[in-house]
């Protein structure tokens, strides 16, 4: 079922990772990605991986959940691996069919590329698994608030983002329900040519749009009833505050970046 997609889903918990300030987590992920892209050889990849694995262990997110999230990108990973393997120039590894097209540099490039993509995805997934969408948008709102001085509508943008995030699961659930209801009347979404399949979508899309507009309308009314009037002078229920653990986490990730850059100079 559609609902089983775990992409960007939040699993509530109360571990150190869950308790970190969302801004810290966001900044740490950025630093982590920088480190990942500066990594050059196995030593630095190992270092970054060690940090990632430690974070996953602390967060108590099951490894199975992590790998399940990866399923959606297996094809991309396989594709980049093959591309790197065959299209990186250099000495062929052996003068045999197929192997003639593969260089040693190609093998390394493929391995590192795969490692990089997998670790990139796992790192960002860990962020969304341990941070609720609402606190993520709060974090964005806070981190980008200096831009408000330049009249960038940060509050409106983050509000749109949190509404979208809030309603994605609802819409998925709704789609599931409508699909079931139409299947109960014998609708067939799986057979026929492209034209027939596209036509088969009408009984899903029409009710889905009708209900999305109805929901949007109701939400707007509900917000107005509670005197919502934009971001001006608005205070937050949960005020974000950095704690000591946040500075520790940030320091750790800054160190990680420095370490990787140093290792890079030594070609490790």
């Amino acid at each position, binding site marked *: 079922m559609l609902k089983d997609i775990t992409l960007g889903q939040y699993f509530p918990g109360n571990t150190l990772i869950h308790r970190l300030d969302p801004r810290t987590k966001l900044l740490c992920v950025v630093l982590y990605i920088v480190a990942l892209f500066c990594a050059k050889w196995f030593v630095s990849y190992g270092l970054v991986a060690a940090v990632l694995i430690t974070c996953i262990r602390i967060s108590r997110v099951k490894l199975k959940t992590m790998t399940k999230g990866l399923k959606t990108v297996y094809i991309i990973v396989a594709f980049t691996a093959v591309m790197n393997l065959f299209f990186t120039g250099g000495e062929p590894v052996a003068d045999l069919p197929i192997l003639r097209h593969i260089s040693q540099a190609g093998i390394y490039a493929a391995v590192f590329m795969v490692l990089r993509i997998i670790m990139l995805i796992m790192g960002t997934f860990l962020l969304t698994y341990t941070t609720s969408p609402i606190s993520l948008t709060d974090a964005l709102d806070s981190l980008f608030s200096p831009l408000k001085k330049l009249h960038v509508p940060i509050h409106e943008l983050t509000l749109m983002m949190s509404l979208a995030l809030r309603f994605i699961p609802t819409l998925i659930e709704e789609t599931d329900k409508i699909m079931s209801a139409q299947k109960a*009347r014998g609708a067939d979404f799986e057979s026929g040519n492209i034209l027939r399949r596209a036509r088969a979508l009408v009984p899903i899309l029409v009710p889905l749009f009708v*209900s999305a507009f109805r929901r949007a309308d109701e939400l707007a009314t509900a917000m107005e009833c509670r005197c919502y009037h934009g971001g001006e002078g608005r205070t937050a229920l949960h005020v974000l505050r950095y704690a000591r653990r946040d500075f520790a986490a940030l320091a750790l990730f800054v160190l990680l970046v420095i370490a990787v850059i140093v290792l890079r100079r030594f070609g490790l």
Partner: protein
Amino acid sequence: MEPILRVDHLTHTYSEGTPFERNAVEDMSLSVMPGEFLGIIGHTGSGKSTLIQHLNGLLKPTSGRVYLAGEDIWARPREIRRVRFRVGLVFQYPEYQLFEETAFEDIAFGPRNMGLDEKEIDQRVRSAAAFVGLEEDQLHRSPFELSGGQKRRVAIAGVIAMEPEVLILDEPTAGLDPNGREKILGQIRAYHRAKGNTVILVSHSMEEIARNVDRIAVLHRAHIYMDGTPAQVFARAKELTDIGLDVPQVTKVAHALRQRGIPVDGSVYTVEELQRQLLALKGGGGGC
């Protein structure tokens, strides 16, 4: 006689393998006879909707089997659509599934998927519309222009038009006013009488179930908690109230009378029956 539907040790687990994993249906077994009017009752979240979505193959059992007229419905997964034409399911709030330009076309969606010819479709749509009390001019209006109750009746007609052997309705009266509720229940009763088909009515209102069905299955926390005639079920009023379900008002009155030493039957669930018993107690005397 062979049951038309048989559920055998059915279990369904949602979101298997995630932290949200839960059994919505656990080891349920149930048989439904041809022509029977079965009521399924239980709290929100007790697994009613999950159970009935197995009966027409919308959900696949995690374990256990569902038999339609003696045949395992998943024996040939490719032909599951045929099961759906034979077991018609009206979802909760079915008016949110309407999509066609006219009510007529929307009711015709099911029969058209069955591959019937236009003449047959026309005849079926009209007869289904008559069952739910829709008028000719309403059939040619956009379903989105109709009132809430009318929309719901269009949606119910859309399933009846497939002429299923078993008609299942998931809380068909939810969110309607008492008038609209009574109207729809009356139409379902009339449909059952006229066709003699099997009807399964899901509800969380005891009053509603009591007055309509031949048999009641009570669901509680993913299990079948009771299964019997209304009289058998209401005789256990104490257990029902313990799990937070209501019993019909007359049943409450009967139990209160018994506690005061008046020997009426504790399982009455219609006003007429209680009246008859009280009059009999008075010594067969005439009026009150």
